[in-house]
C-alpha cells in the first residue's frame, strides 16, 4: 500500500505543479524553451515513470525501456537547444522534492514505509538522471566525432592552379592520420588531372619536426614515382633555420619561400610565361602599323 508510484498517481497534478515550480526556481531557461513544451515533457515523463514503477523499481529493467527512450529524445533535443548536461539532469532531479513532499503528506504512512519509499523513488530518479546525462554526453561525442571527420576531409583540399599544376595548401598539425589522407588525395588528384607538377605549401603548418619532414619526403617521393614533380613552398625563415639545425636533408626537394615563387617556377618548367596584356596589345598594334 502507498508505494511511491501510487502516491504519484493520486497526487499527479500537485506533483506536476510542484515540479514545474521547482524547475522555475532552480534551472528554468525560458530563453531556450517555452513553458508549454516543458509542461508537456514533464507530464509525459511523469506518466511513463509512474507506469513503469508499477512493475519494477529497477530503471535499467524492461519496464522502464519506454521511459529511457523518452529520456534519450529529451537529452538529444536539450543538447540541440543548447542546454548543458547538468541542466538536463536537473530537469529530472528536481522531480525528487515534490515526490518526497507528496509521500510525506500521505495520510497513515508508517515511518519505515516512508523512508523505504523515499529511498526507492530517490534511487530510481537518480539513476534516470545519470542515464540522461550519459545520453547527453554520448550525443555530444557523436557530434564531435562527426566534426572531426568533416575536418579531416575539409583540411586537405587539392586545388588546380593551372593545366598540369596542382597545389596542396596544408594547414595545422600533420599527425599520421591526416598525412595518410593528404598523401592519398594528392596522389589520386595527380592521376585524375594528369598533372606534371604538384606544389605542397606548408605556410599553415606551425611546427615542422622530423616526423612532419619524414611524412613530406614520403609524399614527395611517392608523387615522383608517379611521374610528377613536387615543389615545397611556404618555408618561413624560422622553419628554415630549424630544419637546418635538426639536420633534415631536403636537398633533393625543390623548395621555395612562397607559393607564388613555386607557381612561377612551375609555369617556367611547363614553358609558359606570364605577360602584361596591355604591352602585348601595344606591340601587336605597332607591328600591324608597320
Amino acid at each position: 500500500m502507498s508505494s511511491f508510484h501510487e502516491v504519484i498517481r493520486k497526487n499527479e497534478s500537485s506533483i506536476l505543479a510542484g515540479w514545474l515550480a521547482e524547475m522555475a526556481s532552480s534551472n528554468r531557461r525560458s530563453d531556450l524553451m517555452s513553458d508549454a513544451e516543458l509542461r508537456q515533457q514533464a507530464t509525459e515523463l511523469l506518466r511513463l515513470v509512474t507506469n513503469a514503477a508499477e512493475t519494477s523499481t529497477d530503471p535499467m529493467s524492461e519496464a522502464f525501456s519506454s521511459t529511457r527512450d523518452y529520456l534519450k529524445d529529451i537529452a538529444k533535443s536539450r543538447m540541440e537547444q543548447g542546454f548543458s548536461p547538468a541542466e538536463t539532469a536537473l530537469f529530472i532531479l528536481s522531480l525528487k522534492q515534490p515526490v518526497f513532499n507528496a509521500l510525506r503528506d500521505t495520510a497513515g504512512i508508517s515511518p519505515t514505509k516512508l523512508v523505504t519509499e523515499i529511498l526507492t523513488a530517490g534511487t530510481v530518479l537518480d539513476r534516470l538522471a545519470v542515464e540522461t546525462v550519459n545520453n547527453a554526453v554520448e550525443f555530444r561525442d557523436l557530434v564531435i566525432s562527426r566534426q572531426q571527420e568533416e575536418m579531416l576531409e575539409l583540411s586537405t583540399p587539392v586545388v588546380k592552379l593551372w593545366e598540369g599544376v596542382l597545389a596542396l595548401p596544408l594547414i595545422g598539425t600533420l599527425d599520421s592520420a591526416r598525412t595518410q589522407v593528404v598523401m592519398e588525395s594528392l596522389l589520386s588528384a595527380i592521376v585524375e588531372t594528369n598533372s606534371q607538377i604538384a606544389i605542397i605549401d606548408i605556410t599553415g603548418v606551425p611546427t615542422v619536426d622530423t616526423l612532419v619532414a619524414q611524412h613530406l619526403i614520403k609524399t614527395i617521393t611517392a608523387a615522383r614515382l608517379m611521374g610528377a614533380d613536387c615543389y615545397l613552398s611556404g618555408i618561413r625563415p624560422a622553419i628554415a633555420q630549424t630544419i637546418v639545425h635538426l639536420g633534415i636533408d631536403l636537398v633533393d626537394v625543390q623548395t621555395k619561400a612562397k607559393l607564388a615563387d613555386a607557381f612561377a617556377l612551375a609555369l617556367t618548367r611547363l614553358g609558359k610565361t606570364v605577360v602584361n596584356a596591355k604591352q602585348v596589345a601595344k606591340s601587336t598594334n605597332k607591328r600591324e602599323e608597320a
Partner: protein
Amino acid sequence: MVLKSDVHPIVGSDDVVRVRQVARQWAAELKFSLVDQTKLVTATSELARNTLEHGKGGRMRVELVENGARRGIRLTFEDEGPGIANIELALRDGYTTGSGLGLGLSGSKRLMNEFDIKSETGRGTTVTVTRWK
C-alpha cells in the same frame, strides 16, 4: 635558479601537440625571438615524441630558469620506459630503432643550448634541455 615550474603528462599523441603549445606559450611569455621560439617548440616536439614512443609515456617539466642576468627555459622529459643501452649511438645522426629519420635526439641537441641525457636500461630515460634567451 628556478622561478616557475609546471609538469605536463605525455601519454597520448594529443599530448605531444599540447606540450608543444605549452613550450610556445612559455617562450612567447619570455619574449623569445620567433626563431628561438620555433627551435624550442621543435625540440619539444621531438623529445615529447621520444618520451611517448620509446619511453611508453612520461611527463614534461617546464621551468623558467635564471642564471645571473640570463633567463631561459629548461625542459625535462622523464619516462620509465626501457631506457637507452648506448647513448652515444642514440645521439648519432641517422641512427634509429624505430622507423623515423633518426634525427630527433641529435637534432634537439643542436636546437638547444644545453643538453643532458641520463638513461638506465630497464629504468627509463631523463632528458634535460635548456634554451637561454
